[in-house]
Each structure stands twice: as structure tokens, then as C-alpha cells.
């Protein structure tokens, strides 16, 4: 089994930047469009995903030697579903307001491709600590993506950030409308592509 040679810091930054689940891998887009109307929603769902990702990664890394290869996928699914149920129950009990806001999406973490993918690609081949840091990186990367989209939509749509009035007026109601999530994500992706393009061009110019 090829264990990773990266340091913990590299593992975390990899999840946030190079392999950002939302902008780079384009996985788990549903919440990024559906409930990214406020920064708070992004943080809450980000915490839920972080929790599920870290605990599932650790669980799989811990029992990887005992999993029969033929029932690998069902085991992953069962592990994720268990941790999603746990976080769902906890959120419903202790943070009812935020839970109501996120609606069905907490339960839908179970179908997020990003978590299964990390288990398959990383956790089943690496030790518990590096799986832990990888999970943290992926969770934070997801949260960062959600917060960035939420920030733009909340600021432009309602003129507030984290519920505090910043602008004092509402610039574009359009951004709060559910459909605007698609535009936001699409335009941001294009912006990231553009930055990459410019960066690469400069790099090439330097090399010459």
C-alpha cells in the first residue's frame, strides 16, 4: 500500500486549494447552488460535512485491513450513513434553527460523491493520522467554497454579512433568488479558470 509522503500541512492545503471539492473537482454541487444564500448556511453545512468526512475517513483508515475487498463499497456507504445520522440527530437536537434552514441537505450528505471518493482514493490506503488531516482538508475546502459563494450572494442579494447589515441597502435582489446560485457558481468557476490562465501565461513568459 503506497502511503502518502505528504506532510500534514500539505494534506490540508491540498483539500482547500488544489483539490477544492466545489471549484476544482466540481463534486457535491447541490448544496453549493441550493442553500448558499447566506454565509451562515455555508459554515453550518461545512461543519456537518467536515465532521462526516473526518469521522468516516478515520473509521475506514482504522478498519481498512479487516474490510473484505468485495464488500468495500457497501461498507463505505454504511459508515457514511451512520455518521450522517449521528450529525443529523445532533444538529436537530441542539441547533434546531440552523437545522431547519439547511432542510433536507444535512441528510443528503450521505449521497455526496466527495466523501465516498476520498474514502476510496485516500483513506483505504493511508494511516489514521494522515486520513484525519486529509478529511480536515477536504471538509475545510468544501466549507471555504460554500462560504465564498454565500459571501457573494449574501452581500449582493441582501446587503448583509452573517446577518449584520453592512451596506444598508439591497443591491441586487436577484442574487437571493434560488436560480442565481447557478450563475454565481458558473461565473466564479470562470473567474478561477481565468486566473489560472493568466498565471500559466506569466509562468511561461518567465521561463522563456
Amino acid at each position, binding site marked *: 500500500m503506497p502511503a502518502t509522503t505528504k506532510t500534514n500541512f500539505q494534506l490540508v492545503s491540498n483539500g482547500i486549494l488544489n483539490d477544492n471539492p466545489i471549484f476544482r473537482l466540481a463534486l457535491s454541487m447541490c448544496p453549493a447552488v441550493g442553500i448558499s444564500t447566506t454565509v451562515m448556511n455555508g459554515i453550518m453545512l461545512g461543519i456537518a460535512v467536515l465532521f462526516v468526512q473526518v469521522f468516516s475517513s478515520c473509521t475506514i483508515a482504522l478498519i481498512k485491513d479487516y474490510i473484505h475487498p468485495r464488500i468495500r463499497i457497501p461498507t463505505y456507504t454504511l*459508515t457514511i450513513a*451512520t455518521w450522517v445520522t449521528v450529525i443529523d*440527530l445532533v444538529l*436537530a437536537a441542539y441547533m434546531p434553527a440552523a437545522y*431547519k434552514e439547511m432542510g433536507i441537505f444535512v441528510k443528503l450528505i450521505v449521497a455526496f460523491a466527495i466523501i465516498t471518493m476520498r474514502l476510496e482514493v485516500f483513506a483505504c490506503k493511508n494511516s489514521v493520522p494522515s486520513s484525519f488531516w486529509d478529511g480536515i482538508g477536504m471538509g475545510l475546502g468544501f466549507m471555504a467554497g460554500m462560504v465564498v459563494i454565500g459571501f457573494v450572494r449574501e452581500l449582493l442579494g441582501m446587503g448583509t454579512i452573517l446577518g449584520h447589515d453592512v451596506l444598508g441597502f439591497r443591491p441586487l435582489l436577484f442574487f437571493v*433568488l434560488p436560480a442565481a446560485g447557478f450563475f454565481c457558481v458558473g461565473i466564479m468557476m470562470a473567474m478561477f479558470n481565468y486566473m489560472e490562465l493568466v498565471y500559466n501565461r506569466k509562468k511561461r513568459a518567465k521561463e522563456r
Partner: protein
Amino acid sequence: MKEIIRITIGLTVTCLVAALLMGSVFIVTDKAKKHNEHVNVQRAMLGLLGYTKGHPAPSDLRLYTIYRYIIEDGAIRTLGYMLPVVRGEQGGYQLVVIDLDGQFVNRFKLNITPEKVSEASERASALKVVLKPPKIFVYSDSTIVAKLGKKRLAYLLPGKFPGFKTFIDVMLAIDPSFKIIGLEIMEQEEDPGLGAEINQDYFKNQFKGKSFEKIKKINVTKEPLPEEYKKYLETKKGKEFPLPKGVVDTIRSKYQDKDIYALTGATISSQAVTNGVKNMIRKFAYRINRLDSVISRQHIPVAF
């Protein structure tokens, strides 16, 4: 063969561990969830009556809940009210049955404590003792009576009606003359930015202070919300008024008897809330008058 056994054992163990984990978390969180829900509703109710953290409710404020059931005995339908009675005389609750024309039919003592009465299953089992089959009873709604000292302060009506997309869940506070004290939206799934604006102060507070006579005929107008009125509606209680006191009074009297100003782009949601509130108050006023007359004629020692 050996492999299959290994797989089965592995899966069974995993399932067992997972089930154990989920079960224990459920047991731990279930109580907290129920408690938090109760606290939330309580806070919403007190908030509607104007009691907040900075301005706590007086110690002699009591909230009593009345539960209404529809009782079917073959083709005959009657209403059953579960009323809290004064402690001392066995305490607890009594069931008062009233026919559809408002005439008293029967009354029963119920064996249920005030602590358990908020559980639907506990109420059902207490009612089953006095309403034997073939009588069927169906829960219909509940009303909370707020009593301050010896006089009724307000009625709190939880209600649910269809909105633009799904259901809108509200809590309405009205005083004994059926004037609206406040409206709180408990749950809704309208479009964010459009229908979901019913949750904003400048919409909810429009209902505040509308009299029963006005509310019976209230309508929704599509005129734009005047700027000064919006400012007035958005000032929160407890905070300092950004508007001078005299201005507040003139604005209040100016818009007191106006219709509800619809939200821009969400006329149907506004209409739904207005009609829902109108119907809730009309039905409630009709029923509570009948119930009160039965209570006074039968000398039922009600707590509220």
C-alpha cells in the same frame, strides 16, 4: 465458502456497531430535541406578548392550553374541549362536550396531569377512558390562554394554512377583544427573496393593532408600502425609537385601519397570510364565545 462466511460476519458486525452507535445517539439527543422544541415555542409565545430577555415575563403570568377534539358517534358529531381546571378539585383537565349548535352535552373528568398533557399519545389514552368506542375522536387544534394575575391577557393561536408553495405555520396573539397583538411565522418554505419575505418585520408588524372589526373585512392592497410606515414597522420593541414619539403616534393612527400592503413580487403569499389570519380569528372568536357561555352556565371551574 469460507469467504462468504467471512463477509457475512464482517457485515453483521459492522451493522451491529453502527446500529449501536446510532441508537445511543438517538436516545441521548431525543430528550434534548423535545426540550429545545418546547423552549422555542415558549420563547416565541412570550415574544409575541412582548416579553423578551431584557423585559422578562412577570411571575404571575400563566399559560393554559385548551385542546379541541372532534368527536364522532355514528352520524352525530360533537366538539370536545379539554379544559384545564383549577387545582384542588382533583386538578388537571376536564373534557367538555358541546354540540354543533353550542349547547352543552356532557362533561368528564380526565385522568391526566398537566405535565403529560402536551404529549398527544397521553391525551389520547386519557380520552379513550371516557369516550368508549364506537365513539371516535380526532384532534383538531389547540389554543393557549395567557393569564396575568386574575385577568385574561391574551389568546395565542397556533395555525397552519396553505401558502404559495407549501404550508405556512404561524402563531397569532390576540387580546380578549380579538385585537391582534402580534404575528409570528413559525415555519414556511416560500421562495427566498420573494415569498419568504413574510418573515420580515415590515410585513408581520402590519397586522399589529388591527381591530376585530377591521380584520373581518381586511384585504391586501398592491400599493407600494409608504416609506414612513416601513420605518415605523421596522423599529423593534425595546430598542430606542429612531422616530420621535409624536410621529410614531400619528403614523400609527394613520395606518391603523389600512389594508395589508402586499410584498413586492409575492402578492399571493401576502394574500395567503392575510386570509389565513382572517379565518383563524373569525373561527376562534365564534368558538370562544360559545365555549365561554357554556362554561359560565355550567359553572365549570376553569383555570383560565
